[in-house]
């Protein structure tokens, strides 16, 4: 799973969002180090939809914009949620292993 995909899934884990909402959440959390543009984002959205990791959902109540055209909202599916959990635990294992190594231990620092 690429960093971008992970970040998109993490953003959707906070709740359903439209494309630009995903971008805002990701950039806020990573302090702008991960940048999302429409090309990359929708390419990932199409791929994740194909993998059934995310799906289109009706816009949440109260978030329908007053004037502009309706936007599509996406949410994590069951499969997406599992995939995300799996990935995070895998990363967690990696991090724990790394930290146990003497030359990377936080104690040393």
């Amino acid at each position, binding site marked *: 799973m690429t960093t971008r995909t992970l970040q998109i899934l993490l953003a959707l884990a906070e709740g359903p969002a439209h494309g*630009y909402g995903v971008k805002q959440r990701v950039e806020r959390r990573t302090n702008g180090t991960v940048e999302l*543009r429409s090309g990359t984002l*929708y390419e990932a959205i*199409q791929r994740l939809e194909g993998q059934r990791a995310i799906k289109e959902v009706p816009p949440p109540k109260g978030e329908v914009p007053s004037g502009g055209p309706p936007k599509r909202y996406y949410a994590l599916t069951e499969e997406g949620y599992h995939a995300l959990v799996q990935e995070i635990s895998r990363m967690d294992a990696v991090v724990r292993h790394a930290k146990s190594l003497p030359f990377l231990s936080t104690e040393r620092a």
Partner: protein
Amino acid sequence: MTRPTTLNVRVFRLLLKLYPGPYRRKYGREMELFFEEAYEEGRTQPIRFWLAEFRDHVSASRRIRRRYGGEGTMMSLVHDMRWAMRALRRTPGFTVFATVVLALGVGTTTAAFTALDRVALRPLPYQGADRLLYLGTRIKDQTNLSAVSPALMAALLESPGPAEAVVGLGGAESVLTGIGDPTRVNLTQVTAGYFEMWEGRPILGRLLTGADHEATAAHTLVVSEGYWRSRLGGDPDVVGRVVNLNGRPTTIVGVVSKAFRPPLLGGSRTGELFVSMGLRQSEPERGRFFIRAVARLQRGASKADMNRHVSGITRAVYPPSAGGFVTGAATRDLKEVVVGDVSSSLQRALAAVTLLLVIACVNVSNLLLARGSSRHSELTVRGALGASRRRIARQLTAENVILGAMGSGLGALVAVATLAAVRTWAPPTLPRLAEIRPDALALCLSCGAGLCAVIVVGLIPSLQASRRATTARSGRSREDMKIQGGLVFAETALAVTLVVGSALLAKDLIDITSQDPGFAIDGLVSAQISVRGRPAGESSETAHQFWRSLTERARSLPGVSSASLVSQQPFGSAGMVGIYTPEGMEDAPQGAWVPTLAVGGDYLSATNMRPLEGRLFTPAELEGDRLVTLVNASFVDRYWPNEEGAGRRIKSGGPDIDDEGTYEVVGVVPDVSQEPGLPAEPLMIVPMALESLREMFLLLGTDADPALVADALRNLIRQSDPGLPITSITTVEALARDAVATPRFLAVLFGSLAAVALSLALAGIYGTTAYSTEKRQREIGIRLALGAPRSRVVRDVTLRAGAVVLGGTACGLGVAALASTFLSEVLRQTPALHPGVYGAVAIAVVSIGSAAAWLPANTYTRVDPMKTLRPQGP
């Protein structure tokens, strides 16, 4: 709710075209909404934003396309282009031919358009160009507007009326001493405000100011930058230097920059030295009309206001009650005067080259049609593999676009080369010649037009070919043949139109040059001598003595058989004009304005002139013992129609003037043409000894090499009077050639266009016949196998093509006859509907066209029937 679509969104939508259609339909709208919000954030750094956006979409779309296993619209366009390039490379002969044909059409059209635009359409390059008017005087019996006299100029300067400024210039050849050898210089006399009007700036010193034009002012001189650099060696201390101009000490006060380009008026050359005209005299001259006057109107003033004002002033200076030869005044737009009738010549050239462009397009269309048919199997395979008709048509159009682009690119080079050639070869009288340069606008315009032309022209062949490829119809279609026949017809008709035009011009040129100029020009050398080099205040007796002895000594030069003096160079513009009252006109209100030629020495015998009536001058008359004159045939026709001329009298001056002397007409001579092909004007020929002249030409009859004679003559003049400037020495034959420069230029121009057009049409006829014969090989094979003689088959094929050529030619002749009125103005001798020319063109085109059809017919029927009847592949 709809929002306005911004430019940014439009660009973004173009970017979206990188994605495959289905993807775009699903996510395009969302991406656009995303983009709008993102742009709001990134708008402070638009360039950075767009760069990142491009990178993002190019890489994302590549991955998406791979996922779809297809291509986006743009990618498939790129793909089409690559395919088209490969297809064109496979047939280099076709590609090169079509490119060159297009390039010729586009290039020449671009060149002609640029020339027309630069010379005739653009305003003159001066401030307030649309308010500039040329002021002229109407003189009795003169059709053209004459220049103004010093008296009139002074009155106009005094009271400019509705004009913001009025300026005048007069040209004079002068002799400059004090810098190296005495040289003849091109002196421009100007009035106050001349430099301001044409935006002159000094690069050294100052220009002429109001004070320089005062009657009491010291003689001052401004030189041009070109003269300063070439003749004064760019001397930085030149200001203040005193030179001798026509014997008067004159101080150089400044150098005017080379950006100073006043309009060339009345055939004047670019000025080198500028002096004040010195009009502030008590009594300015009234009888000489040589000042070219230009006025710039005040804003809001009309041409009619100025016309009234100038007419009023002219009436005041030359009161009609006094019965003078000045009949009025007129104004014309300066541009009209500068550009003259060149505008219509250029329009003719543009019309001709546009025809050429159309012929080129028709030719390429024909080629594309044939090419489409011959690629039938290739395209059918593509159709069978699933390519849609639209897709195939698009690929073929891509080929056309590339052809068009290559043709236009090469055409731009052709245009640049053509314009360079025009600048080099055009007659120097063509106004604004230096301004004729290719510019970006003209090139873009014409190249765009060329590109459009080939796309439009290629559309029908592409659609034909693509339809056949996808509908499993036979490769050889009757429809194709019909279209091709029509194209050949059109091509022939257009080419014939051009050929007729150029044939008329060529015939005219031949008629003009073969016309008898009225005197023998073989072996004559003409040397131009300025009389101003002689000491000032020389008595006329000494002067005549000097010229007589110079003529004698010139006659004794080796290789020289005759020497004569004449006031006007053969084929030169009229030098002297005088007012006379021919016998029988004593009661007329005004005298006749007659050009006069003064001759001395052996002129009449050297030019082999024979009197029609009476006799030539006796030696005593040539020495000036009494007032005698010869007149030409036109003079007799104008003033004494159907009567004898010899023995009659012509009074010098107008009828109202008391006796200034009366000339006796001793003989009538044939018309001597000054401008070949144009009707001769009345002319009086008087003995040189009776006139005092400013300028003279020494004509030497010789059978030796003119160059050797010229050298000997130079030495002789230097020995006789070291102060006499030596100017051009040339053969009269060369002068005669120069005199037909304009008709020759037109004939060459149209001739080359017609040659190109005709060869294109012939190539079309040949190609079409070759193609259709090749397609009919099976049928021909059957006929031959059934015993038809080959000659008959060849005749059938040739006749079929010949009929199209015949029809095209007939149509072309009709169009040419209608269009010939265009040419009638420039034709001097040949009528625009000359039947011989039309007939000759018709016979020539039909026979050459039939030959072009016979050649392939003969080749392609030379086949073994068995071979062509064998079953053929798809």
